[in-house]
């Protein structure tokens, strides 16, 4: 026990003297939250629309006016021909082209139906979906209008209609930042923990200091814990710092219990750091550690549900995610912060994280060899 304390004292001395790591511990969470949370957003603020109106009738103009009335639609003049519209789409100067064919009004009057065409730039599938949904609901409103006008019915909803009113729980204003911040914070503590601990251990190999330490009676678990505990504390400190920044900057609600959140973070970090340390026991240089750790980080982060819900991933991907500590932690963060979930709601995640933590840490201690 005393030996462990001396090892910790040594590790902290070295960390506090490191001119790169120390500022990074404070700057990284700040920058990540400021830049990523604002930048990585799905909210559509502006849709550029080009109209190809080949009918030029009161009916077609009425439809365009409806689009014009929506604040985030910028209906950018008419072009005469579909070709011209397509060209704009190709050049990326417009997001969506609305084509109203000639004879639109006539067809509407005579046959009670008419067709319009939407050409949507789908480079970004998510955005395209959103544009389509918006356009659809506007066209739905237009339909209601013409039914009212032409059929001469008074402007009230038919009795058979079901009215839907939405109420978004846990994030009533659908603030995307509230969704992103817990995700970014999970990544942040993972980076701090996994990279720093792994790099630190392998540095002893690179500098040859491990050779001197290996002939001392220091036990394997003492050495590994000496590498784990400092970065575990730093990562938890960064989580607190990050939560504070998020609270001030985007009013992130902290619905659930903070001690519970930090308890979970502590358990999670043991698995993340354990994996980082395990990687460093099977590599020889900092470069190798960087490379291998980066591979796992990318895999874990993108599969862990930062942008896309894990539930909509294919079955095999969900199976892999059982081994992905970030996936559990990201869910835990969102559930505690936004939903206020309690321990019993997260029992499954807790058990999984404990298993992963014990697994990775044991692997690291087992694989660390004092003898070649």
């Amino acid at each position: 026990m005393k030996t462990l304390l001396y090892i910790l004292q040594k590790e902290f001395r070295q960390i506090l003297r490191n001119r790169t790591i120390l500022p990074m511990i404070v700057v990284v969470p700040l920058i990540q939250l400021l830049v990523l949370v604002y930048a990585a957003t799905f909210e559509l603020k502006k849709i550029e629309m080009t109209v190809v109106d080949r009918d030029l009738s009161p009916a077609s103009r009425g439809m365009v006016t409806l689009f014009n009335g929506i604040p985030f639609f910028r209906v950018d003049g008419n072009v005469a021909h579909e070709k011209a519209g397509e060209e704009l789409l190709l050049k990326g100067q417009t997001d969506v082209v609305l084509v109203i064919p000639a004879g639109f009004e006539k067809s509407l009057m005579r046959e009670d139906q008419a067709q319009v065409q939407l050409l949507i730039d789908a480079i970004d599938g998510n955005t395209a979906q959103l544009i389509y949904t918006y356009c659809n609901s506007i066209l739905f409103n237009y339909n209601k209008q013409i039914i009212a006008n032409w059929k001469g019915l008074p402007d009230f909803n038919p009795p058979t209609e079901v009215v839907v009113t939405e109420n978004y729980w846990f994030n009533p204003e659908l603030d995307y930042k509230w969704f992103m911040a817990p995700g970014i914070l999970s990544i942040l503590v993972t980076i701090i923990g996994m990279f720093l601990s792994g790099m630190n251990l392998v540095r002893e190999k690179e500098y040859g200091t491990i050779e001197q330490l290996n002939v001392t009676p220091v036990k394997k678990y003492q050495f590994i814990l000496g590498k784990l505990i400092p970065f575990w504390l730093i990562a938890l400190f960064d989580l607190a710092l990050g939560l504070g920044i998020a609270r001030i900057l985007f009013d992130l609600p902290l619905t659930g219990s903070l001690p519970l959140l930090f308890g979970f973070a502590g358990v999670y970090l043991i698995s993340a750091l354990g994996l980082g340390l395990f990687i460093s026991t099977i590599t020889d240089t900092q470069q190798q550690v960087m490379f291998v750790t980066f591979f796992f980080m990318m895999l874990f982060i993108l599969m862990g549900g930062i942008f896309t819900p894990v539930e909509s991933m294919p079955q095999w991907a969900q199976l892999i995610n059982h081994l992905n500590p970030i996936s559990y932690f990201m869910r835990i963060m969102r559930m505690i912060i936004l939903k206020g979930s309690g321990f019993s709601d997260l029992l499954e995640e807790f058990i999984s994280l404990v298993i992963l933590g014990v697994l990775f840490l044991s692997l690291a201690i087992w694989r660390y060899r004092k003898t070649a």
Partner: protein
Amino acid sequence: MISIRNISKTYGETEALHDITLEINRNELFGLIGPDGAGKTSLMRILMTLLLPDSGSASLDGCDVVKEFRKIRKMVGYMPGRFSLYQDLTVEENLHFFATVFGTTVEENYELVKDIYSHIEPFGTRRAGKLSGGMKQKLALSCALIHKPKILVLDEPTTGVDAVSRKEFWEMLKNLQKKEITILVSTPYMDEANLCDRVALMQKGTLLDVDSPGRIIQKFGKRVLAARSENMFRLINDLRTFPKAASVYAFGQFAHFTSPDDDVEVNELENFLLKNGHQAVEVEEIEPGIEDVFMGLMQNSLQQSVAAGNTNNKPSKKQT
């Protein structure tokens, strides 16, 4: 104190140690002498429980290096060839750290390291990385001694250290020996062999000879002629063409010459050189040094291995 029995170690294709058997006595200052790649470090790492031998066994003070490695780690002090202390910790912090991980304190064993540590004590708050080469060695030695080991193992402690520091360092080792510490030290410098009680001459994973430096020289029993002239490069080449030359090597300002049957006189060699147009020729008979012995032994073992290689190659030569 240290007994090594039939140790072999192979890395992939290369055999680092071949069937080494060696006995080192209590309180001895023992030197492992040999060029780079002779297997000195591998042997030391096996003794330090850092490397497992492929076959054979070794024990330190009765403790087996494989089975009782925990006991060994408590009683040995090891100074690896590469500076292995924490460069970002200060001199004092390094010493305290290594004392504490061995469960002791600097104060408790200060007496043992005092002579060495006092040289660097004025720089106690300086980072270890900022020390000069000689001071680094002293700090490393202090750290290896701070837990009062029975056996001290030093892997090329004087490589890359200036001549004055080297001399100082060996004096320190002599003093430590008086404090009843068994010392095993390796070095590529053959002049340092004379400072050891006994040495083992190593080459390519085998022991060429193990004895006291004096006895090794005595056993050599060959006459060595030292020659010099204005043009040393040409002198060595010419000497090698001398009909009765066994070995010719450059040693400092002289070329050392031996003949197979020790029947070449000073005049004979002098005349040969003068005939070859050398100026300012100087030839004298000298006492052989440990270097001469080592070169001689090395050449013998090379010739043996070449001879063995030739017989092996014969069948394939016929095919071509």
